[in-house]
């Protein structure tokens, strides 16, 4: 069994596809970091043009003023209890910036690494995973090597399982490498720090409204760990689904086509999410798990972290069952 998995992983590596994925990651992250750098410079230029040259260095004054304002706001007896915790969280962040001399305008490697995955989680990361998974089985069919695989004295389910576990290993690898690459590449642009800055999280949806009573700060490293873990979960789900498609469909091209068009369609469909209830059970619209962490999602009654995770898990399990049943029962005619 162990030998089989090793065999599959080595096969993937020698096919150079993994290297290809990493290469794409490097190129994209570099472009992204460069772009962020540019827009940062532009924002600064605009600010200093509008508010005088020193405005960007004057952030301390501004932060001081904001803290005083928030303090006053917290003391006000007319203040809504609900919005108090987000004010408190904001104040903590400002205080941290002051204490550690961090200009909030500046980007940091930690911030960039997190933002990168938050942007990548619903389309880019799934596409990378699809590149790896969609020909795991169909590739063997189209090249005819599946015969050689199946005549060995190993039960079919074991062969499939070893392929699946190999895929899982590669998924971890992709998530891990994208983290390392993002952290290193952006480090050259923005400096390597920022891992201990506080980030607000803990938003919930109550009665269709964003509820921020539970908001609190976590350090950036923990936040980005959570983001990348969610990304891995997404990779696992998308990997399972495209693995199933690659079992069902004989040609690699159509396997990639099917899963890719599904993903892209998900972006359109999320448009109807609020009104058309059944769409929320599709896996594509539930991929933006990190939005639940950052509180940047469109609040929809009934959709929360647990719901999305359950839906995704359901899809993953169902596709695993279908793949195994189909693979062990099908006739191989090559």
């Amino acid at each position: 069994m162990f030998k089989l998995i090793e065999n599959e992983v080595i096969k993937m590596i020698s096919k150079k596809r993994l290297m290809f994925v990493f290469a794409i990651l490097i190129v994209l992250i570099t472009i992204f970091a460069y772009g962020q750098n540019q827009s940062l410079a532009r924002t600064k230029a605009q600010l200093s043009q509008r508010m005088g040259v020193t405005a960007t260095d004057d952030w301390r004054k501004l932060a001081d003023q904001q803290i005083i304002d928030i303090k006053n706001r917290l003391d006000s007896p007319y203040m809504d209890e609900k919005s108090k915790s987000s004010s408190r969280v904001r104040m903590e962040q400002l205080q941290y910036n002051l204490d550690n001399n961090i200009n909030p305008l500046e980007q940091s490697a930690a911030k960039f690494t997190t933002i990168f995955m938050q942007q990548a989680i619903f389309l880019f990361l799934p596409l990378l995973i699809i590149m790896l998974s969609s020909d795991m089985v169909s590739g063997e069919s189209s090249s005819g090597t599946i015969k050689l695989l199946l005549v060995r004295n190993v039960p079919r389910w074991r062969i499939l399982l070893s392929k699946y576990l190999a895929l899982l290993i590669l998924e971890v690898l992709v998530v891990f490498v994208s983290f390392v690459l993002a952290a290193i590449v952006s480090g050259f642009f923005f400096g390597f720090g920022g891992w201990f800055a506080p980030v607000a999280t803990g938003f919930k949806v109550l009665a269709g409204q964003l509820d921020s009573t539970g908001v609190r700060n976590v350090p950036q490293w923990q936040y980005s760990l959570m983001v990348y873990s969610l990304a891995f979960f997404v990779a696992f789900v998308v990997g399972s689904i495209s693995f199933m498609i690659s079992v069902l469909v004989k040609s690699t091209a159509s396997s990639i086509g099917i899963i890719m068009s599904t993903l892209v369609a998900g972006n359109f469909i999320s448009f109807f999410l609020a009104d058309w209830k059944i769409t929320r059970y599709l896996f594509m619209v539930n991929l933006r798990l990190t939005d639940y962490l950052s509180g940047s999602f469109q609040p929809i009654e009934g959709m929360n972290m647990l719901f999305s995770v359950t839906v995704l898990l359901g899809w993953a399990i169902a596709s695993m069952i279908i793949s195994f049943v189909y693979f062990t029962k099908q006739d191989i005619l090559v």
Partner: protein
Amino acid sequence: MLKKSMWYTILTIASVGFIVLAIGFYQAIIVTTAVNPQPTSKAAVPQTTPNSTKLPSKNANSFKVLLLGDSIAKGTGDENSKGFAGYLPDYFKNSTAKDILVENAGIDGLESIGLLEQLQSQKLDKTLADSDFILISIGGNDVRRILSLNDLAKEDQFKVRLDSYLANIKQTMKSLRKANPNSIVIFLGLYNPYEKANSVEDIRLLNTWNYDTQQLVEQDGKGIFIPTSDLLKFNLGRYISKDGLHPNSAGYQAISNRISKSVETIIAGS
């Protein structure tokens, strides 16, 4: 051999990574679903109505000003964190010898619907009834959201927003007058804090907003509308604070000065 060692490296990274990611995933779930970690009862202290020993102003040697509405009423942006609450008494003092007490009930980010809810909750009724002057600043947050739209969408959205705003203000004035039929209501107009937003279209929208507001406010016999856009138009650099939105200390003083001049005779006579 190379392949062998590569395989073990990959396997190690994968298993360690898997465990770490599993922990992170668990944390993410907990953070987004856990019940509120902060004790909510902690902050419930300052609910007492401020200054419960206040005297009805008619036979006291003081009069009271209530600040209602958004961050501008509250004084956000003033680097000395005084705002109207700090400066109005200074300027009023020139016209009267009485003590001036200010009650600040401004809330950052309040929209007209929020103000209406605040009044209708009747928590403020007692404070309202005791006030001689009520300063209201509202509407900026209603408008702000449509500013980034393109011209066509802006026009449509503006109409919708303006209508709901006017309806809210009408109701607000009604609740206010129910609690206190005699106080002077000072209503601040909107100004344009953005140098960029000065296309013909933007100016027209701002003027329509202010004009309709003024119509409504001054239907009330004891309401006065104080424009601010003219005061700030050429003085943005001087009167707008670093956040680029609220007045700064000098800005609050300038507006306070204007308000005090407008109600000078009333203060002197009361």
